[in-house]
């Protein structure tokens, strides 16, 4: 019954992007962890997560996200998220996640935020 979570990772010079699609639940823990590992494989400092194709995120999914956010913080990485519905933006603020990740509305905003200053 749960819609299986799938992850696609794209890496560019200064931003690794994780695109999730499906439900972020108990069953998502390994997918979330593996996607994060893939995103940082080349040592990138900035990671953005796209939730625009995730309709259902529950407390177990939030715990999985908090797990990688905690790891990213420990490693000194910058985490950004975008594509969350207004409801899940509220939930992220409620559980304190918004204090540790940069909440963006769109992919373009996330890209812009990590864009290196022009010489």
């Amino acid at each position, binding site marked *: 019954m*749960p819609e299986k979570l799938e992850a696609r990772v794209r890496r560019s010079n200064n931003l690794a992007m994780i695109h999730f699609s499906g439900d972020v639940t108990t069953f998502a823990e390994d997918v979330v962890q593996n996607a994060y590992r893939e995103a940082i494989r080349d040592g990138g400092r900035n990671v953005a997560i796209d939730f625009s194709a995730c309709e259902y995120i529950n407390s177990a999914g939030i*715990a999985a996200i908090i797990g990688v956010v905690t790891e990213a913080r420990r490693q000194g990485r910058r985490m950004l998220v975008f594509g969350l519905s207004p409801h899940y933006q509220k939930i992220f603020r409620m559980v304190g996640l918004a204090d540790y990740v940069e909440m963006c509305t769109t992919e373009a905003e996330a890209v812009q935020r990590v864009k290196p200053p022009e010489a």
Partner: protein
Amino acid sequence: MADDVKRSIEIHIPSELGYEKVAMEAAGAAAKRMGFSADRIQNLKTAVAEACLNAIEHGNKLDVSTEVGIVLTIQPASLQVNVTDEGKQPFPDRPIQPGRPEDHRGWGMFLIQNLMDEVQVSAEPDGGNQVRMVIHLDK
């Protein structure tokens, strides 16, 4: 609908992760019919899903021979949702500290308490756990 009539909907779901979505969709449909705003419906759906998850995972310990009961009671100005398990074990009672990402377990009850207008957790005489939640129309 006549204002003084109480209506109720009863659902039983297996103690299997994923079936909480059936209960949350039913609660969402009832709330929509009652005229709740989209934002409040989302709050309700998340709270119902989390109460069912607690019941499935903790109350019934994922035992597929058990069920979770959900009763939606439609009142003139509010919707009450009772979620009951078979009490294989009591709910965990551990405070959550928002803003500490390392403290990431047990968010379900925290979300329920922050999204609903009234919440009561009780032990049933037969040993089950019950979460009673109310959301008011006038907020």
